[in-house]
C-alpha cells in the first residue's frame, strides 16, 4: 500500500486554478522533493493533503484511506504530519511544554501507556534533534534554526507514518540547513517517507531521490534530480525561454 497517493487533485480559488489535476505518489521509504516557481501551488497542495483546505476534485489517499472531508487533526491521527513554511512555535512555553502538545493527540496517547513514557520519548526525540540541552529553555529564546528543529521534533511526537516539510530551509544558515538535512536523512533511513517543498534547490537536490515539479498548478515533470535539471519544461518554468543552468552544483 502506498503511503500517499494523489490522484487528479484540483483546487480553485474563485477563478484561479491553484491546482489542476495534480497526480503523483510517494512510495515507502521515499524522500520526495516538490519544487516550482513562486505561486505554483506547492503550499496549496500541502494544505489540501493535510486537511487545512478542502479540495474540489480528485483524491488523496493515505495508506489506502481517503482524506477527503477529514479535519486536519484527524489526518494527523491517520499518520500524516506536516510542518509550516513559517515556523509555528508555541511562544510563551518551555520547550518541554511545547513538546507535550502533540503527545495529547489520540495517535500519540494510544502509543504511550504512561506520562513517564511520553516524557522519555520527548527527551529522546529532542536529543536526536540536538535540542536535548534546550528542554527547559523558553521557546522564545531559541534561534531560527532551533525553532525549525523544534517544529520537526513536535511533528515526530505524533508518530507520523509520513512527514511533510514545507520549506524547512527558509531563513536558515548553511550550517543550520546541514542540521535539518541530517535529521531528514536519518528519519528517512529509519523508514519514514518524507515530502519536502523547497526553494533552495542546491541543498534540496542533494537530499532527495525523486522530484515533482509544479508550475501554475500543473505537474510539469517528475523524476530523479539528475533528469529534472535537464528537463526542458522545468528550465522554461524557472528561467523563461532562454536556456540556462539551474541551481544544481
Amino acid at each position, binding site marked *: 500500500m502506498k503511503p500517499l497517493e494523489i490522484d487528479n487533485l484540483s483546487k480553485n480559488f474563485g477563478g484561479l486554478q491553484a491546482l489542476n489535476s495534480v497526480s503523483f505518489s510517494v512510495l515507502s521509504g521515499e524522500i520526495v522533493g516538490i519544487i516550482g516557481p513562486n505561486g505554483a501551488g506547492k503550499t496549496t497542495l500541502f494544505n489540501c493533503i493535510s486537511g487545512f483546505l478542502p479540495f474540489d476534485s480528485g483524491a488523496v489517499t493515505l495508506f489506502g484511506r481517503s482524506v477527503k472531508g477529514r479535519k*486536519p487533526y484527524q489526518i*494527523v491521527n491517520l499518520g500524516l504530519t506536516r510542518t*509550516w513554511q513559517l515556523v*509555528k512555535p*508555541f511562544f510563551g512555553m518551555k520547550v518541554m511544554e511545547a513538546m507535550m*502538545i502533540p503527545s495529547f493527540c489520540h495517535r500519540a496517547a494510544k502509543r504511550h501507556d504512561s506520562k*513517564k513514557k511520553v*516524557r522519555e520519548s520527548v527527551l529522546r526525540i529532542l536529543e536526536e534533534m540536538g535540542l536535548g540541552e534546550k528542554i527547559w529553555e523558553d521557546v522564545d529564546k531559541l534561534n531560527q534554526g532551533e525553532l525549525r528543529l523544534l517544529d520537526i521534533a513536535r511533528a515526530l511526537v*505524533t508518530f507520523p507514518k509520513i512527514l511533510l516539510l514545507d520549506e524547512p530551509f527558509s531563513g536558515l544558515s548553511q550550517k543550520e540547513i546541514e542540521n535539518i538535512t541530517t535529521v531528514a536523512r536519518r528519519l528517512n533511513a529509519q523508514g519514514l517517507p518524507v515530502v519536502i517543498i523547497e526553494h533552495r534547490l542546491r541543498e534540496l537536490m542533494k537530499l532527495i531521490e525523486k522530484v515533482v515539479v509544479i508550475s501554475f498548478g500543473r505537474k510539469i515533470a517528475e523524476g530523479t534530480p539528475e533528469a529534472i535539471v535537464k528537463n526542458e519544461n522545468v528550465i522554461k518554468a524557472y528561467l523563461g525561454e532562454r536556456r540556462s543552468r539551474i541551481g544544481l552544483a
Partner: protein
Amino acid sequence: MNLHKETRLLYKNQSPFGWAMIVAMALFALLSENIFYVEVIKIAAIYAIFAMSWDILTGYTHEVNFGFAFFIGGAGYLSGILNSIFSFSPLIAIPLAALAAGASGIFIGYLTLRLKGPYFSMATLAFASILFKLSFIFYEITGGEEGISGLDVFSDDPTKDFFVAWAVMLAVFIVLTLYAQSKHGIILKAIRADEDATQSAGINTAYYKIEAFAISGFMAGVGGGVFAHSQMHIGPTMLSGYISIIVVLLAMIGGMGSIVGPLFGAIALTILNEYLRVVEEYRIVIYTGILILLIYIAPEGLFNLKFVRKSRILTFILLGERRPL
C-alpha cells in the same frame, strides 16, 4: 535534575498568595463583628467567581468574551424564576441554572468558533444584549426594570451567607486551577499561541475551545445564581454591559491567564470600591480613575508585571511557579 519531577514543576503550580487570600477572607468573616464588612467580602467573593470563570476562557485563549453578563445574569434570572415561580429551593435552582448556562456556553461556543479578535467579542456582546432586551419584553416573568425580588436566601445569618459564597469561590478556584494545569489548560495555551500548529499536532482545537466556553459559562452561572439568592434580588443590571465590563476589568487588572490573578483583582478592587464609599460623591470618579491608572501601569495585569515575572521569589509567592534549573 529528574526529568519527571521537573516536568511536573512546569505546570503544577499552587500559588501561596492565592491560598493565603482565601484563608484570610474566612478568618476575617469569623472574627469580624461588623456585618457590613462581611457583606463586602461576600460581594468580593462572588465577583471573584465571575472573574475566575471569565479567565478560563479568555485568559487562556485570548478571545475576549465581552458578553459575560449573558451567563451571570441569565443564570441569575433562571435561578430566580425557578425559585419565585416554581418555588424550587436555591440548592436545586442554582445548579439547574448553571447547567443551562453551561449548555448555552456550548451553543454560543459552537456558533462563534470561527470568529477571532473583535468579531468574537462583538458576537458575545450581541448575545448578552439579546438577553438584556428579553428581560424587558417578558416583564411578566422577569419583573422588567424592577427585576425579581424576594428570592429565598441561603441563611438569615450574614456570616453563614458569606460562607456559602466563600465555599463556592473556593470550589471554583480549585476546579479551575486543576483544569488549567491539566492537559486541557495546556492545550488552550497552545491554541492561544498558534491554532494551526495545535491542529497539526493532532488536537481537535474546536472541541477544547467549546469545552472551555461551557466550563466558563457553567461557573459563571453558579456565581450568578449565588449572587441572586444572596442579594434576594436579580435585576437587569446583572444582564447589562456594565457587569460584563466590570468582570473584564477585574480579571485584566489582576492578570489574565493565571486564575489567581483575577481572584486577586476581583477581591482587591471590590473591597477598594466599597471602601471608597466614605467619599460617596466622588466614588465612581476615583474608582474608575484608579482602574484606568492600573490598566496604564499594568496592561497585562498586576500578576504579569515585568518585575514580577523576572523575580523568582515573586513568581513563586504570587503564581506558585517553580522554574526548573
